[in-house]
């Protein structure tokens, strides 16, 4: 993998090789760059006037924004990124009028330019542009105002615009990932809900270390997380406000509730409730009210996930004798099985585009992550023979995040895998990680 990347780079300038050389101590390898992906050059963003802000000078922020964009695009494997180090800088007028012949000579197929400008109110105007160097055409542009201290978020928004310009897919970088941070011995694991930006920055714990918390689901607006905590030795769905940590149970009786899922509009929440040996899926308005029971068949109905239009729900049920995937309408009607064969299927997640359902599949060799259509066709396994579980979609719909236990120790780590296929890539977290939930792109 690394060998291929270096071979490809040997064709480029020596400056580019110096930039891409991976230190021997670095264990995270840049994903393989497939044939035909464009060479994208990302010089430092320009600034019309160098000015100091609360987050440093606009020139420094321009370099940092370019660094974040480069790291974001490298993480996808959809681009061979050069820069921002060892790439010539440019003056402000070239932001919207690049000297294409010059960039062409340097080997760029695509060029990212942009600027960082300090405003009177202390905030920043950030603009970024994607050009096809060969045809001298602008492919994407994005401009916005952010607080100086939120320049990183601005960079992610640029990355999203550029990623969409390159791939025609929705962005994914200005988003957050909630997950369970694990520590302590296996039989008494400390499990806390944590949330971080999609690139791992701005990591914070949302729940304390006193209760076991599992299965977080980020609300569509990104402001709340539904999760399951063990309260008085019993599972209970709780909702926590990520901005201030205020939390409350979804329903305030002693019933065993778990497996929450938000509707795409954020107004309803699905959950499983276990009563007398039977677990069914219920829907409840976020504001409260009476839960509506959606499944009645004996058996364990869990892991509901809404289609992006909110009209259908995919879920896991063992009503046939083994765990399988089922689809029903949002009111519980029209329940039908979509997975068949001798394998066990679970943890379904409907894709943002509506085209795919991700799942975990367990067979004799172990379990892996796969995708199939909502009709149960075109099944494809992305990982195999491990113990992978808990897939969640990146907002781009092109990548899944999941957890993988170490086969010897059972300790979990987060990985991403492109749905187009390829090697899973480790997502670094401060502690062991499980149950990832990738939010939508923030508005």
């Amino acid at each position, binding site marked *: 993998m690394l060998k291929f990347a270096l071979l490809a780079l040997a064709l480029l300038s020596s400056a580019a090789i110096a930039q891409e050389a991976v230190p021997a101590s670095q264990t995270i390898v840049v994903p393989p760059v497939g044939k035909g992906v464009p060479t994208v050059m990302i010089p430092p963003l320009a600034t019309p006037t160098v000015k100091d802000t609360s987050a440093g000078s606009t020139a420094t922020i321009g370099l940092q924004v370019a660094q974040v964009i480069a790291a974001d695009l490298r993480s996808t494997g959809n681009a061979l990124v050069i820069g921002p180090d060892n790439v010539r800088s440019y003056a402000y007028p070239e932001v919207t009028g690049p000297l294409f012949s010059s960039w062409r000579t340097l080997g760029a197929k695509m060029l990212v330019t942009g600027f960082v400008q300090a405003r009177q109110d202390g905030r920043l105007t950030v603009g970024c542009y994607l050009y096809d160097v060969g045809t001298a055409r602008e492919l994407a542009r994005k401009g916005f105002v952010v607080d100086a201290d939120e320049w990183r978020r601005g960079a992610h928004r640029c990355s999203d615009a550029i990623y969409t310009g390159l791939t025609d897919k929705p962005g994914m970088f200005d988003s957050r990932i909630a997950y369970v941070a694990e520590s302590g011995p296996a039989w008494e694991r400390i499990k806390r809900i944590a949330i971080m930006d999609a690139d791992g920055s701005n990591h914070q714990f949302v729940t304390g270390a006193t209760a*076991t918390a*599992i299965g977080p689901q980020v609300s569509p607006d990104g402001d709340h997380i539904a999760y399951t905590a063990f309260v008085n030795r019993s599972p209970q769905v709780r909702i926590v406000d990520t901005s201030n940590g205020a939390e409350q149970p979804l329903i305030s009786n002693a019933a065993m509730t778990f497996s929450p899922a938000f509707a795409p509009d954020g107004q309803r929440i699905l959950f499983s409730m276990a009563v007398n*040996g039977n677990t069914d899926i219920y829907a409840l308005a976020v504001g409260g009210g009476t839960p509506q029971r959606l499944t009645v068949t004996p058996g364990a109905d869990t892991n509901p996930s809404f289609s992006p239009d909110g009209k259908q729900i995919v879920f896991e049920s063992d009503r046939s004798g083994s765990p399988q995937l089922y689809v029903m309408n949002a009111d519980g009607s029209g329940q039908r099985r979509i997975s068949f064969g001798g394998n066990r299927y679970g*943890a379904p997640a409907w894709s943002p585009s509506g085209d795919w359902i991700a799942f975990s599949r367990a067979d004799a060799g172990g379990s892996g992550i796969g995708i199939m259509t909502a009709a149960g066709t075109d099944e494809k396994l992305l990982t195999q023979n491990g113990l992978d579980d808990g897939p969640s979609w990146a907002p781009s719909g092109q990548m899944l995040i999941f957890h993988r236990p170490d086969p010897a*120790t059972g300790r979990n780590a987060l990985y991403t895998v492109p749905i187009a296929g390829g090697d899973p890539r480790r997502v670094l977290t401060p502690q062991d990680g499980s149950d990832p939930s990738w939010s939508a792109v923030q508005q």
Partner: protein
Amino acid sequence: MRGLIAGFALALAGPLAAQVPVAPSPYVAPSTDFIEIPALQVDLVLKAGSDRVYFSGNDFGLTVSARATLAAQARWLLVNPEVRALIEGHSDQRDTREHALAIGERRATTVRDYLVSLGVPPVRLNVTSWGKERPIQPAPGDYGIDRNARVVTTIIR
């Protein structure tokens, strides 16, 4: 597990039936309703043979040996009418996390119903599920021989 070990130490040091309050584990939300009684837990294990029964795969049926163990537990509960029991279901590491919670509850309900059928008043039995959150065999074993798939009868006040 920890409570059980502490209970053994107490059993050696004093009368078996001494009711000793247990400090809540620092990692579990302090319980206001369910307080374990380690000395009586040890007594249950000694007299009934075990405080737990095992299951396999997605199954929630009781084996012959599980029924024998539960019959002994029921006798113990009937001669110790002052305590309640929390019937705690656990599941396989190979189940999805949410399915594991449902299966744990189903198994615990099966155990509770069997104990009730042997004369234990239902009001003395509370059912809960830990899913796969409290494994005794942390690394996932071969499916079907996983010792994590169990229901534990925990004696509480």
